[in-house]
């Protein structure tokens, strides 16, 4: 009677043309993750957003992308880690961030603007040759590059949530590849907010956010915003035959005034 090892080898040999190592479990790599502070999202992402990788939060306006990102930053800054918010359209709200629990003195906020220095700031004589100003998107990409390369930031949010999909997709793949390498090297979680996925294969996780409904109190004041999240892509998760549809989760975010009232 053949032993179990011999039997396994026999089966693997028979199937090796179609499924290599069909009975040998693939080695499992434990990736470091940081929780977002939203239980449902953390469960959906198998613990949180990955460290040293790009995570994309996509979706239309009012779909909860910003709330997830700010909640993740709140977790990081509370433990004394330094984070950055690169704001392509200057839409970050410090009041909301402070209400969620972000320690603002640990947060570097880069507010991109139209009225700024010229591309070449090396020589005044070159100004006539290179007078084109940085666009907001250019500034955001350059600032992300600088912060990723300088290191020391545990999380960086690249906020392209208000950029049009056409502009976002024009960002070269080489840029995202460079970000991925730099984030991996400096152990930085890069969160990209956008209307659609822009980083493509460089993104480790893509979470598509959708708006579900709003709860109110006696139809007079908003109480909670309900959101839905689909995990579209996760580079480090194991492929199982059960995951035929992308995992979905619903979560809700309370309004600041409702939370204060309950307290």
């Amino acid at each position, binding site marked *: 009677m053949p032993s179990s090892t011999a039997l396994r080898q026999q089966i693997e040999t028979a199937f090796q043309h179609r499924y290599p190592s069909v009975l040998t479990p693939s080695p499992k790599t434990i990736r470091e993750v940081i929780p977002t*502070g939203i239980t449902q999202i953390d469960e959906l992402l198998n613990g949180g957003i990955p460290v040293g990788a790009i995570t994309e939060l996509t979706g239309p*306006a*009012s779909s*909860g992308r*910003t*709330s997830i990102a700010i*909640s993740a930053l709140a977790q990081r*800054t*509370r433990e*004394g*880690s*330094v984070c950055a918010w690169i704001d392509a359209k*200057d*839409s*970050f*709200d*410090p*009041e*909301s961030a*402070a*209400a*969620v*629990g972000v*320690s*603002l*003195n*640990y947060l*570097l*906020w*880069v*507010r*991109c*603007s139209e009225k*700024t*220095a010229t591309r070449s*700031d*090396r*020589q*005044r*004589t070159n100004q006539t040759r290179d007078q084109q100003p*940085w666009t907001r998107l250019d*500034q955001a990409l*350059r*600032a992300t590059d600088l912060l990723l390369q*300088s*290191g*020391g*930031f545990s999380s960086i949010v690249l906020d392209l*949530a*208000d950029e049009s999909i056409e502009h976002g997709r024009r960002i070269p793949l080489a840029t995202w590849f460079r970000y991925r390498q730099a984030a991996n090297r400096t*152990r930085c979680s890069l969160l990209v907010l956008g209307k659609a996925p822009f980083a493509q294969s460089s993104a480790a996780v893509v979470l598509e956010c959708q708006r579900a409904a*709003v709860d*109110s109190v006696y139809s*007079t*004041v908003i109480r*909670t915003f309900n959101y839905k999240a689909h995990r579209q892509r996760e580079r480090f998760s194991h492929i199982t035959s059960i995951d035929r549809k992308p995992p979905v989760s619903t979560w*809700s*975010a*309370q*309004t600041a005034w409702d939370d204060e009232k309950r307290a």
Partner: protein
Amino acid sequence: MSPHAKPASLYAAVHVAEFPAQSILRLRPDLQSSPTVILDGSPPQERVCALNSHARKRGVIPGLTRLEVEEVGNITILTRSAETETAARTVLLETLSQFSPRIEEVLADNACSFVLDIAGSERLFGSPDQIAHRLRETIVASGFRASISISSNFHTARIKSEFSRGISVIPYDRESTALASIPISALHLDLDHYETFALWGIGTLGELAALPEDEMIPRFGQPSRTWLALARGNADHTFHPLEEKFELKEHIEFETHIEQLDALLFIGANMIGNLVARASCRALSLSSIRIEMLLERSLLYKRLIQPAIPSDDRKFLLKLLQLELAAHPPQAAVVSLTLTADAGRQSKIQLGLFAPQAPEPSRLDVTLARLKAMVGPDRVGSPALLDSHCPGRFQMQDFSVINQHPQSQQVTTPRTSLRRIRPPHTLSLQTHDGKPKAFRDGPSRFEISIAYGPWQSSGCWWDVDRWDLEEWDVMATTTNGESISCLLIHDHLNGKWLLDAYYD
């Protein structure tokens, strides 16, 4: 003490000749190998007051006019700068203070001369010969060329350094021999006395020292006793040490006004190097550098560089200077440049093994300077909420990772966040029964399905910053089915409806 015993006093005299030229050329290495003269006086009566050896070889002598110098040809002509000389004198003094805290300044025409009391420093710096060589090395590193003389007699050291080149170490009891060949002009006598000595055939200090003192006093009076003592190298002196305030300052004036930043940085690199070297001598770093420039049309330019921690890294400080100048370029050509630094303790950040990662302070400074140059200085930093009920009030603070502590409270439940629209979009809005019904934002038209409000907010009615707002939380849908939750504002002061923020 026996008359031949070694005395307790020991002096080192440092004489920097052609000081107006050296003070400028030390900051202009590009001109050090070319003939250069310094003119003093007001045009058109400017005359050469100092020159370098290359110019001397070309036949230029002090006292020539500008026209005469220009006739010689291929000679760089610079203008004398009192501020540059003052800064250079301070630098020289700082350099010498590494060897002795007791320094006396000696008045000298067209030169800068100091005498150091180095008695007892042999155990620190070695023999007098070694001290002299180390002095010369340090002075050369500061950008000066000086003659150095060491003697147990103050005046002997001073006179010898003025009338000789290089290093002279005069042994005790050999002072008169060392001074013998020096002309009697070293004594700064009256013209009548020079004529008398010339008639007698006395031209050097050695010849003067040989004259009998008893015969001299009836003819020249009591001052002749001092002359003889000086010539014989045994004149007494009461030492008056300087008490200078420690100031890190470098100044330079340009003969041709500088327009390009690269040229300015080339000079600035030297100046920063000097400041760092002087601070390092006292185990200090630079905590801030003030940049002051005089521009054409008498414009003033002032900026401040302040690294997160005091630094003595020359390249790092130069990078900050470059980024600061690139972010705020001078609006006219630069006439003069002054760098004044504040000294700080040399400090390092102690990182913990289990502490969360944080950017390296000096590297972060450069990154922040680059970001400020790109997006604007007031658009990079940490937000700080203002103590106001007016929505959206905050101010930007400088971002720093040093001595920060988390300020936030633990929030257990997720909260929704706003995305502000800066500046708020003005809307054309339709109302029904006092409630918003539909609005148009640019090309998009939104139908409002739910509107909660109004929430009234007003304040600062006594001030120009007063506000009187009515807020509405609305759920709106466009014609193509896109729905948003947003915050509308009715500004009562201006009578406008504004789209202020999205809930996201």
